[in-house]
């Protein structure tokens, strides 16, 4: 029999610290598969953020720079400009990218830096115990919104893929999910497409991946997985928002 599924080479063969059913693990694997596909492992420099994905260097068999909270797109800008031959991506949570790092992502995107951003939206600050994030859904209870997010006081959740799509510097933007085989196979395709933009020097590419955080949502992994395809995907619509290249 032929092996039809194997661990990507770019993903270290180690146990992760992620909670059971956390989609960070799945998204890590898809990113590693894209790295393998384009053969960029040896020239990749990942830029890790602050959050549950902080241990990027422990899980990917690549070089990694650890950025201060929210600053990954600025750090990645420096890395890519200093080493234009490298493949540079950031991997950031929603607290990191859409809250403390709002300025850095918007300006890196607007400048059209030739980097790839993997944005993992789990509607909460996972690592620190489930506080409200800019992406928390209206009505969602978190440790800092115990009665549910109140739109009148807290605003509506920010749709980052749509917001960045409006910037001239953005070449590719898509929102994906990994909650079922169909969405997952599409996520795989879009992540590879985002990588291709950088490999071919076509500019800034952005992937927003919806992700389950069973622990802070107070749900078992299967219920959390269902929430991603349910109320999350209802508000954060999956799809390709911008695709400027001809390939």
């Amino acid at each position: 029999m032929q092996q039809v599924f194997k661990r990507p080479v770019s993903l270290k063969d180690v146990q992760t610290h992620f909670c059971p059913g956390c989609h960070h693990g799945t998204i890590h694997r898809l990113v590693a598969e894209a790295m393998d596909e384009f053969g960029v492992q040896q020239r990749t420099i990942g830029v890790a953020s602050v959050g549950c994905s902080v241990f990027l260097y422990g899980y990917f068999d690549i070089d990694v720079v650890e950025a201060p909270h929210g600053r990954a797109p600025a750090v990645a800008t420096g890395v890519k400009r200093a080493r234009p031959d490298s493949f540079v991506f950031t991997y950031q949570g929603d607290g990191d990218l859409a809250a403390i790092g709002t300025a850095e992502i918007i300006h890196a995107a607007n400048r059209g830096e030739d980097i790839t951003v993997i944005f993992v939206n789990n509607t909460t600050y996972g690592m620190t115990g489930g506080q409200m994030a800019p992406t928390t859904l209206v009505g969602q209870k978190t440790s800092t919104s115990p009665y549910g997010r109140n739109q009148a006081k807290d605003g509506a959740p920010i749709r980052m893929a749509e917001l960045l799509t409006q910037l001239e510097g953005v070449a590719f933007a898509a929102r994906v999910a990994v909650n079922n085989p169909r969405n997952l196979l599409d996520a795989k395709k879009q992540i590879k497409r985002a990588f291709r933009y950088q490999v071919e020097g076509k500019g800034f590419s952005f992937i927003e991946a919806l992700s389950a955080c069973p622990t802070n949502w107070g749900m078992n992994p299967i219920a959390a997985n269902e929430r991603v395809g349910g109320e999350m995907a209802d508000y954060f619509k999956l799809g390709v928002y911008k695709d400027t290249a001809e390939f």
Partner: protein
Amino acid sequence: MGKIEIDELRCKGCGLCTIACPQKLLSLSEKINNLGYTPAEISDPSRCTGCALCAEICPDVAILAFKNKTVAHK
């Protein structure tokens, strides 16, 4: 014809593979692994098609999938 290998030490018992398998062959076992989780197990391996959807959905890369690619019946 297919086959999977579940790494019982890596499996965190999340159950996502159990809902992804089109053949409904997977469930969580009663035993407890070294991490304290109940790993997934396959009930009727002979019915596995090797579609690899269980492996794809697994957040912990705890499943490897194999397929017999010689069958080409019309």
